[in-house]
């Protein structure tokens, strides 16, 4: 995969979650990430894709190779036009032993990646941007 190609996975059902994370794992592998890192990336994609299915019904995940100031890595974005998140601060509040039965699992997902950004607007949708760098 070169720096130009970008993979887009439409997320509409749970089968798409599996497709998205398998794509993520493949691309991560081709970029030289270790198998442990691949597992982290695949898990992070699974989490954000699940949020799309559960709260927005549909959206998309984009995955691409990414370079910045000499560093190389993977960039994953999860976009939807769902209801949006009312209180982002609350959603991102960290607590290591949260059981995730109600929450979006965002603080945990953030721990899986190196960079994590989320923007959301009520009624408009949510975009999660995550990056992981190759060491």
């Amino acid at each position: 995969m070169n720096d130009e190609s970008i993979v887009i996975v439409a997320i509409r059902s749970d089968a798409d979650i599996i497709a998205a994370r398998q794509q993520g794992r493949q691309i991560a592998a081709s970029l030289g990430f270790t198998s442990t890192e691949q597992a982290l990336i695949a898990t992070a994609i699974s989490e954000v894709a699940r949020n799309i299915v559960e709260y927005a019904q549909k959206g998309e995940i984009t995955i691409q190779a990414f370079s910045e100031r000499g560093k190389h890595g993977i960039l994953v974005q999860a976009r939807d036009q769902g209801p949006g998140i009312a209180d982002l601060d609350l959603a991102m509040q960290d607590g290591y032993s949260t059981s995730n039965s109600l929450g979006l699992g965002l603080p945990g997902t953030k721990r899986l990646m190196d960079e994590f950004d989320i923007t959301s607007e009520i009624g408009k949708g949510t975009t999660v941007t995550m990056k992981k760098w190759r060491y």
Partner: protein
Amino acid sequence: MAVPILKQHDYLIATVQSTLTDSDMMQLQNDLAERVGRFRSKGVIIDVTVLDVMDSFACRMIRTIAQVIRLRGAETVLVGIQPDVAFAMVQLGLSLDNVPTALDLEDGLALLEQRIRGRHNHER
């Protein structure tokens, strides 16, 4: 059946063969509940060796399945979580609460035996 279930004496062994969809999970829950009832099984092993990702949803489902099985009078042990998967799970902050885990099938069966004997002794 997405997840084949084998009967071994008083135990059932469910071995996950590939990534599971939501409906596969529901099917597994129903199949195990039905069989535990039918065979009056004392314990269930769920083997997730082939899974390369266990996300929050999968964890919730496993906990639910274990609860359903317990309501039917049987113990559950989860086996086969791989190193990378375990690592990702704790990074994510997932816990399997009351679902005991073991390294593999062999250890899982030993653990089941221990727990069932313990429960039996406790009930005496």
